[in-house]
């Protein structure tokens, strides 16, 4: 609607009058509409009210000046100029009021002050209608000029005095405020100064020296004020009508765009088809009208979204995304995922350059105390080696805890904003944020939302700490369990080992029994010695392996041949209950712990054998696949039912009654610790293949 008025007005002026009236029209309209919007937004708010009054009075005055310029006779012009002067006399009142209460209503002019100002204004308004201020109007060929009356100088003094007083008030306030408010004051000061300096010169100062020809155009520089205020509204959320502004801008662009296309069409028609209104012309117009009706809204929305992103930085999406990020952070448990969300929010949503999250250096180890905060990396969820640190006794840390508020360093682009993540009086983390990519400063809203994000992050990070601690404890427990499982599986191992030991024992015993009858048979004795030693060594080796398995000891890092590990683990399993097929190829050596690697195979072999109670074939293959050493253990047993497939690596999950259910989970852990993968392929009734890749 607004736009229709603007366009209709422009069109009307262009058609009926002169181009020079377009700008006055914009001045009137700009002041009028901005004043109205600000007023309607919150008419009880003193800031909005006083600004609206100033803008509306300015609009009225500009309109009167326009009428003055358009007047037919000097007498008529005189009348308009007197009314204009009367209106003008009142402008300082809301103006000074606005400058007093902006940007915060902490200083409200006293009632008696108001009455006094009002009296002065009314005095000047009243004498405006006499000849004391404007004596007469003359018509020159360039336009009307007015002859100042005897009190004109007084009027100028009054007006300028109030203006200076008002500006000084706001400048005073400029020094009293920080951050966003300060920026808003700058916009307002600049806007009003630039908007008022010109009419003050043309309509007050120059006439004082006898030159009043420019009086007619004086008001129109208030467009600048309107522009500045609008900019301040959109950028710094002044009086909160940025939606309307952005919508208006979008409407203007959309209509201009569609209008230009239409004008182009008309021009084409005009030049190439006909200069009169033909049926074709009407058809085109009607079709275009329909088209506009269909797409205008969409184009407007598109432009508004784009311009919002440009001018408001996608403000609304942005707020939504920020609060969503706060919510998402709350859902996460692992440090890595929390850091990821936070960093992503800083980078993509708030668009901050060089954001850093500082955490205590021993964040994951709750028992260790940290002396400093260091930057944590999102990828590894561990301290980055950036060298950047904030010592725990740093003044900044103390300040953050004491004030519980973010700290702004407006002149430090690398560290413009520091937001504390506080939980009670513990400083869980610190966000150190560089300047926004847009080069804008942080707004109060940014800070507010970042604070919400920070407090959410503090809670979650604190939970994470206990979660990480529990995870570390779990790992220790798992290790202990793995040991007890090893001890438990000794029982199972014993059965297999018994056979292995008893056979050599049989040989040793029988052969030794036969000794007395052959004590002189040297060849026999030598043979006997070899035989017995061989079998004693065999027993010793078996016992050695059993002991190694039962013992807990730090992990060894050595070069291990998978095939060797497989062969020695085979000796610990009662393998002869099933057929064994070995297809071992040469594979690269693996860095790791031989005993642990053997444990994987012992577990897998035991499972395979237990999966084949009726006998079957156990196939062990090793080969190289894409440079990785691969071991495959395949049984022809019952297979794993698909419904339990997911659980087979869980601790304590067992499909057997006698099992502890740790075999595969331990195997999994060991493989993981060796940087390997394990894959399972199983078909019920046909068998299972475990493929381990290192």
């Amino acid at each position: 609607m607004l736009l229709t008025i603007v366009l209709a007005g422009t069109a009307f002026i262009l058609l009926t009058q002169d181009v020079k009236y377009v700008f006055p029209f914009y001045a009137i309209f700009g002041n009028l509409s901005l004043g109205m919007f600000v007023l309607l937004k919150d008419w009880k708010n003193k800031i909005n009210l006083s600004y609206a009054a100033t803008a509306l009075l300015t609009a009225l005055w500009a309109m009167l000046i326009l009428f003055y310029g358009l007047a037919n006779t000097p007498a008529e012009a005189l009348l308009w100029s007197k009314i204009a002067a009367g209106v003008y006399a009142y402008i300082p009142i809301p103006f000074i009021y606005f400058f007093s209460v902006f940007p915060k209503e902490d200083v409200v002019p006293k009632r008696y002050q108001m009455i006094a100002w009002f009296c002065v204004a009314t005095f000047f308004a009243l004498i405006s209608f006499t000849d004391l201020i404007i004596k007469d109007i003359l018509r020159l060929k360039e336009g009307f000029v007015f002859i100042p009356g005897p009190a004109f100088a007084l009027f100028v003094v009054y007006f300028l005095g109030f203006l200076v007083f008002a500006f000084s008030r706001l400048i005073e306030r400029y020094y009293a405020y920080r951050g966003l408010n300060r920026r808003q004051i700058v916009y307002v000061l600049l806007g009003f100064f630039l908007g008022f300096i010109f009419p003050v010169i043309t309509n007050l100062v120059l006439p004082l020296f006898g030159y009043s020809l420019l009086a007619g155009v004086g008001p129109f520089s208030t467009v600048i004020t309107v522009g500045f205020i609008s900019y301040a509204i959109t950028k710094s959320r002044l009086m909160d009508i940025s939606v309307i502004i952005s919508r208006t801008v979008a409407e203007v662009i959309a209509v201009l765009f569609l209008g230009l296309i239409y004008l182009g069409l008309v021009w084409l028609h005009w030049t190439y088809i006909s200069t009169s209104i033909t049926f074709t012309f009407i058809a085109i117009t009607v079709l275009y009208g329909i088209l506009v009706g269909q797409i205008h809204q969409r184009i407007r929305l598109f432009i508004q979204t784009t311009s919002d992103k440009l001018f408001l930085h996608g403000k609304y999406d942005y707020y939504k995304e920020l609060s969503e990020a706060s919510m998402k952070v709350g859902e996460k448990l692992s440090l890595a995922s929390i850091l990821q969300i936070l960093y992503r929010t800083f980078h993509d949503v708030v668009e901050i350059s060089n954001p850093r999250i500082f955490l205590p250096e021993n964040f994951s180890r709750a028992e260790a105390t940290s002396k400093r905060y260091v930057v944590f990396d999102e990828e590894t969820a561990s301290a980055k080696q950036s060298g950047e640190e904030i010592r725990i006794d740093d003044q900044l840390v103390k300040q953050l805890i004491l004030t519980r508020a973010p700290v702004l360093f407006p002149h430090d682009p690398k560290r413009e904003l520091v937001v504390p993540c506080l939980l009670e009086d513990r400083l869980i983390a610190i966000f150190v944020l560089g300047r926004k990519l847009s080069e804008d400063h942080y707004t109060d809203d940014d800070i507010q939302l970042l604070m919400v994000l920070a407090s959410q992050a503090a809670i979650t990070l604190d939970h994470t700490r206990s979660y990480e601690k529990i995870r570390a404890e779990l790992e220790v427990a798992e290790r202990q369990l793995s040991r007890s499982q090893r001890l438990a599986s000794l029982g199972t191992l014993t059965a297999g080992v018994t056979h292995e030991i008893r056979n050599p024992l049989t040989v040793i015993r029988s052969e030794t029994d036969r000794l007395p009858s052959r004590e002189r048979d040297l060849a026999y004795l030598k043979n006997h010695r070899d035989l017995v030693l061989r079998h004693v060594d065999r027993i010793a080796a078996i016992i050695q392996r059993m002991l190694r398995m039962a013992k807990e000891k730090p992990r060894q890092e050595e070069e291990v041949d998978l095939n060797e590990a497989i062969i020695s683990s085979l000796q610990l399993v009662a393998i002869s209950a099933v057929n064994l097929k070995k297809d071992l190829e040469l594979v690269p050596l693996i860095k790791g712990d031989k005993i642990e690697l053997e444990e994987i195979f012992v577990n897998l072999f035991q499972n395979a054998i237990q999966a084949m109670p009726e006998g079957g074939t156990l196939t062990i293959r090793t080969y190289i696949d894409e440079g990785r050493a691969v071991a495959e253990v395949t049984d022809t047993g019952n297979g794993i039912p698909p419904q339990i497939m997911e659980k087979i690596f869980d601790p304590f999950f067992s499909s057997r009654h006698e099992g502890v259910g740790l075999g595969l989970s331990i195997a999994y852990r060991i493989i993981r610790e060796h940087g390997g993968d394990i894959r399972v392929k199983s078909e019920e009734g046909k068998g299972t293949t475990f493929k381990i890749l290192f």
Partner: protein
Amino acid sequence: MAKHMVMVVDDEVDVANSIANTIKDTDRYDVITAYSAKEALEHLKKNKVMMGLGGNRIGLILLDIKMPEMDGLQLLTKIRHDFGEDIGISMLTAWEDEEKWDRATSGFVVNYIKKPFKSEELITTLDDFFSGEEGQMVLKTFEKHISKREEFNQKD
């Protein structure tokens, strides 16, 4: 009278040879060795008397219970199926698998000799078996099975 023939079946060559030597040392028995179930079955076939109608020259088999491919129990079943009940079978065990023990009942084995055994124990088994106590031995083992089985049942 020809010596009784004993066959030692064990997949471990050293074990089989050692047992065979111990038996040979007594000079009272002929001994053959088989290192796998397949070999054992071949020996049994070769030693049939009058196509099996006159029994088998092998009187007693010392059978390792745990061997690859076909284990002792499977072989036992096969022998009983192919060569009847007349051949005595003594199980050599290093691995007291209770379930297997139980299953062996159906094979009517002479006894179980646990590795590592004393030479006398082995020889006594042979002597007893060939001096006509075969029936009693099988019965005794069978009774042991029954009580063992009852023990299991009670446990369950």
